């Protein structure tokens, strides 16, 4: 489903973000990316979403070479991905429900259908009762769960989460991870970056990065 073939990313002669990375993630797998800050975890996730292009090597998603993807094809790739960021990137000028509806509206879904599915997604992350609230009125953990609802509302094949628990307390982090595991359990492929040892210890598969290099894989 996701395949990295000798991928390197270099921003400048001294700025190597990734160096000769190769791995494969099968459909329905839950994989954690571990490593200290600056290890290249975010760059790796961005490459899968075509936010960055490899300097060399190939990134394949469902057999499609992301590096060779034309600009017009990028939105269609991203509609099959659920992206979750450390800073939730919710739009504070609209309600929680409107935020979750956005991925559906950009694909041309009717507003009523989009609202119905957005409410269902909010229900899955336990925030249906906060649908009409403004994002700033929610706690950090709740905001992250809203961003998860936004990521899964389009029923993506893959969820990419970049440090989704970094700014959360233990209880909130636990709820976020539980929500991600719930989606994995219904067949969604998940790639989650984290440096939370407690979460990583319980993971089935962990890819360790350090200074842009693949150090080891733990299973």
């Amino acid at each position, binding site marked *: 489903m996701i395949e990295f073939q000798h991928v390197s990313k270099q921003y400048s002669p001294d700025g190597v973000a990734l160096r000769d990375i190769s791995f494969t993630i099968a459909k329905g797998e839950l994989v954690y990316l571990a490593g200290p800050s600056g290890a290249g975890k975010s760059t790796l996730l961005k490459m899968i979403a075509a936010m960055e292009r490899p300097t060399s090597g190939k990134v394949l998603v469902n057999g499609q070479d992301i590096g060779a993807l034309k600009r017009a094809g990028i*939105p269609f790739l991203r*509609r099959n991905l659920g*992206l979750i960021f450390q800073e939730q990137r919710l739009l504070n000028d609209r309600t929680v429900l409107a935020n979750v509806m*956005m*991925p559906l509206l*950009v694909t041309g879904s009717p507003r009523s259908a989009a609202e119905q599915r957005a409410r269902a997604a909010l229900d899955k992350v336990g925030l249906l009762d906060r649908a009409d609230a403004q994002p700033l009125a929610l706690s950090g953990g709740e905001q992250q769960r809203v961003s998860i609802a936004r990521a899964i509302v*389009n029923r993506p094949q893959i969820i990419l989460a970049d440090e989704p628990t970094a700014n959360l307390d233990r209880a909130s982090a636990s709820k976020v991870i539980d929500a991600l595991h719930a989606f994995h359990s219904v067949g969604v492929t998940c790639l989650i970056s984290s440096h939370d040892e407690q979460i990583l210890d319980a993971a089935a598969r962990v890819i360790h990065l350090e200074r842009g290099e693949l150090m080891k894989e733990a299973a």
Partner: protein
Amino acid sequence: MSTWLRHHLFALGSALVHVRRAPGSFLFNILVVAIALALPFMGVTLLDNVRPMSEQMAVEPELSVFIKADTPREQATGLASSLRSIAPTAKIIFTSREKALEQLNAKSGLSDVVATLGENPLPDSYVVKLNAFQNAAEGSKIDSIADQMRALPGVESVQVDSAWVKRLAALLGILRLALLLLAATLATVVVAVVFNTIRLQVMTQREEILVSKLIGASDSFIHRPFYYTGALLGLCAGGVALGGVALALQPLNRAIADFARLYASEFQLAPLDPMATAGLLALSASLGLVGALLCVQRHLSRLN
């Protein structure tokens, strides 16, 4: 409802939502664009009112053909057939020197002065009323007819009475060109104002644009609301400018009425007809759209 229509309705809705969020700024921009549009719109209205006048005046241009003083009467009256051959459709009226003197005495009240001359100084003449011209632009034909008449034996001179019509037509031509240049300059101003308005909106909505891109919005989905905003700005400004011109016609018409009365005329400036009004509104919206297109190409394509 088709997806295409839904996308456009969504874009229009988004544009209106953003206008509602900052109505003061949008209204100010409408005012600036309307001021830029008002001047050429006023020019168009004036030209539209004056053009029928110049066309009407050019319908029957006249030539006065003066016969040499020593030409015998028979030869003078015989010239009618030669004039007819040059201008077959014209109305040709012979005025004898005696009749011309009578008219001069009757019209000008100079009978005492004329009496002191002793003899009639006026020549026999023809008035040739041409009726083949459709508008002032065809006025150049009259020169060739006058030249042919001048070459006839016994003709002293030919006076083109409609020369002023040609001058008016030429003046209108210059005015039209000046208006075109003014309109082009002010259209650039309109595009620049819309460009800047959209640029500020892109900056304000930067986060929304970036998030939209990340959740799979296509470029056209992101660009469309800005196109609608630009077109809406142009359309509203066009409406305000046309309204302003219509209001300005009221005091202008009062002043014109006083002036026209001196010439026994009822001339009044009328607002543009609905077709022309719709055309100018469409043009205003198009200018807004062009400004938005240029801005989106310049600024949005950089956001990725």
